[in-house]
C-alpha cells in the first residue's frame, strides 16, 4: 500500500448535524488524514450515494463510511442494514459514530455487522485520536477490497 499511500481515501460521512460535519472535517485535518470527504445529510441520500442513483450518479465509491446512528428519514441502523444486506456494498467498512453510549445501540449495531462502533467523545483531542485510529485501522492495517 506504500506505493499508493498518496491517494486520498474516499470517506462518506452520513451526518445531519453541521457542527459534527465541521468537527469531523477538522478532526480529519488535525489527524492529518489525506481524504476526500463526501457528506450526505440523511439515510436516503446515503444509500443513493452508495448506489450512485439519482443526483449521485457520478458519486465515487467510498473507502469508508462514517455513519451517524440518529438520522432524519432513514436512520443509521436501517442504513447499516441496507449496506450489509447489499452484496455490492457490504464490503465497504462502516464505522458507526454516535453520541449514545446506550448499550442497545452497541448490540444492535454489532448484530448488523458494523465494522466498528465509536462514541463521539466530548474531548476534541480524543475525537482526533479516534479519527486517526479509524484511519490507521481501516486504511493501513486492513487490506481493503478494491485497493
Amino acid at each position, binding site marked *: 500500500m506504500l506505493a499508493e499511500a498518496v491517494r486520498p481515501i474516499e470517506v462518506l460521512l452520513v451526518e445531519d448535524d453541521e457542527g459534527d460535519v465541521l*468537527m469531523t472535517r477538522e478532526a480529519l485535518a488535525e489527524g492529518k488524514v489525506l481524504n476526500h470527504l463526501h457528506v450526505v445529510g440523511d439515510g436516503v441520500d446515503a444509500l443513493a450515494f452508495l448506489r450512485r442513483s439519482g443526483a449521485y450518479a457520478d458519486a465515487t465509491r467510498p473507502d469508508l463510511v462514517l455513519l451517524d446512528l440518529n438520522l432524519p428519514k432513514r436512520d443509521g441502523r436501517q442504513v447499516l442494514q441496507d449496506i450489509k444486506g447489499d452484496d455490492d456494498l457490504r464490503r465497504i467498512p462502516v464505522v458507526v459514530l454516535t453520541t449514545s453510549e*446506550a448499550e442497545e445501540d452497541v448490540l444492535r449495531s454489532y448484530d448488523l455487522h458494523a465494522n466498528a462502533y465509536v462514541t*463521539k467523545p466530548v474531548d*476534541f483531542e480524543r*475525537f482526533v485520536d479516534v479519527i486517526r485510529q479509524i484511519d490507521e485501522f481501516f486504511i493501513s492495517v486492513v487490506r481493503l477490497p478494491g485497493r
Partner: protein
Amino acid sequence: MGVDLSLEGPARWTLRTRLLLLFAAVLVLVAATLVVQIVQLRHQQDVRDELLRNIDPAVQAATDVRAATAEQESAIRGYAFTGDAGFLDEYVDGDRAAAAGLNELDELLGPTEAFDADLERVRSLLERWQTTSAQPVIDASSAAERDDLTSEEFQEASLENINALWAALDEIDAHLATEREAQVDELDDAARSATLAMVLQVAGVVVSGLIVLAGLSRVVTGPIARLGDDARKVAEGDLEHPVRGIGSPDLVRLGGDVDAMRSRIVAEVNMLNAASADLERQTEELARSNRDLEQFAYVASHDLQEPLRKVSSFCQLLQKRYSDQLDERANEYIDYAVDGAKRMQDLINDLLAFSRVGRTTEAFEPVDLGAVIDDATDALTPAIEEADATVTVGDLPVVLGDRRLLGATFQNLISNALKFRGEEPPKVDIAATLCAGADGDEWVISVTDNGIGIDPDYDEQIFVIFKRLHSKAEYSGTGIGLALAKKIAEFHGGRIWLEPTPPPGATFKLALPAPPSTEKRVHTDAG
C-alpha cells in the same frame, strides 16, 4: 339463606329428635312383643305347674283312696266271715290310708271349687259305708251277730255302698281327666300363641327395620345426598349454583351455612378478579411508563449530550486554533467550560446507567463471584498498582444474577476502597459467608478496607444518588457508585449496607440470595 323458623310441629324437629323418635318407636314395638311373649310364657308355666303339681298327684291320690277303701271293704268282709281280729287291723290301716288320700286330694283340689262337691260326696259316701256297712260288723260282739251281717242282703247293701263310693271316685277321676285334657289343650294353645308371637315379633322387627331404613333415608341420607350434589356442583366450578338444605332444621341450617360460605367465596373471587384486572391495568401502565422512561433515557443520552459535546469540542477547537490570540484568562474560561461539559456528560451517563439497572437483564444466570472479582481487579489493575494496594479474595460462591451488574458493583466497591485510602497502602479484603436469612439462605460478601472510613451518621446517605461526603477537589467522582450498588443489590433480591466497624477503614456488606442448591458448607477465607 337462613333457616325458616316459622315451621311448626314435626317440621321443626331436629335430626337428633327425629332419630330419637324413630328409635323410640322401634323400641316400643319390640318391648310390646316381648311383654306379650313373657305373659304367654308365664301362662304356659302356670298350666304346666298345675298339671305337674296338682292334677297328676290328685289322680294318684284318688287311686290310693280307692285302693285303701278296697282294702277296708275286703278286711270287713273277711272279719264278718271269719271273725279274725287281724282283719280289723287291716281295716284300721285302710281307714288311715283312705283318710290320708282324701286329705291329699283335699289339699290338691281344695282350691278348685269344681272338685268341692266331688270330694264332699266321696267323704259322705265313705262315711255312709263305714257307718252302715263297716261299723255294724265291727260292733257285732258274737259270731251269730256277725252271721246276720254276712247275709246276702247285708252284703249286697254293703257292696252297693262301696260301689257308690267308687263311682264317686270314678267321677273324680273323670273330672281330673277332663281337667287334664283341658290343660293340655291350653298348653297347646299357649305353645301355638307363643309361636305366633315369635313370628309376629320377627315380622315386627323386620318391619321396624324397614321403617328405620326408610326414615333414615328420608331424614338423613336423602337430604345429605342432595346437599352433597349441590356442594359438588359448586366444587366443579359452578360457583353460582345455590346450596340448599332440606329436611330437619339442622340440615337446613347446614345448607344455609354452606351456601353462606359459597356466597363469601364468590364475593372473594369477584374481588380477586377485580383486583387482578386492576393489577393487570397497572402492570400495563407500568410497562408503558417503563417504555416511556427508556425512550427518555435514549433521548437524554443522545439529545442532551449532543449540545454538550458541541460546546466542549468547539471550545477546545477555539483554544487550539486561536490560543495565540487569547490571553491566559480566556484559556482558563475555556478550561472551565470544557470541564463543566465533561462532568455534565459523566452525570448523564451515570444517571442512565442507574436508570437502566435491571432493564437490560433478560434472565439471571449462575455467576461465579470469584471470576467476577477477578475481572474487577483486572480492570482496576492500574489503580491498584498506582496505590500499591493489596486485594485479598476469599473463597467466593456462585450466585444467580447479572454478571455485568455484579461486576460493576464490586468494581465500584474496590475502587472506592482505593480512592478513599488512608496513610497506609490500601488493603482490601473480600470474603463470603453463608447466613440464614428470613427468606432462605443468603451469601453475605464483605468488602473491608483500611481507608479513611465513613462516619456512621452518613451510613444511609452514602447510598443516595449523587450524594457526596467530600468535595470534588478532594475526591473525584459523581457520587453514583454506591447508589448504583444499592440498586443492583436490590434488583438481585439482596441488600447492601455499611457495617459499623471501629476505625480505621470501612466494611461494606452485600447480601445476595443463595441459589436453592447451595450446600451448607463452611467457607474458609483462604486467599
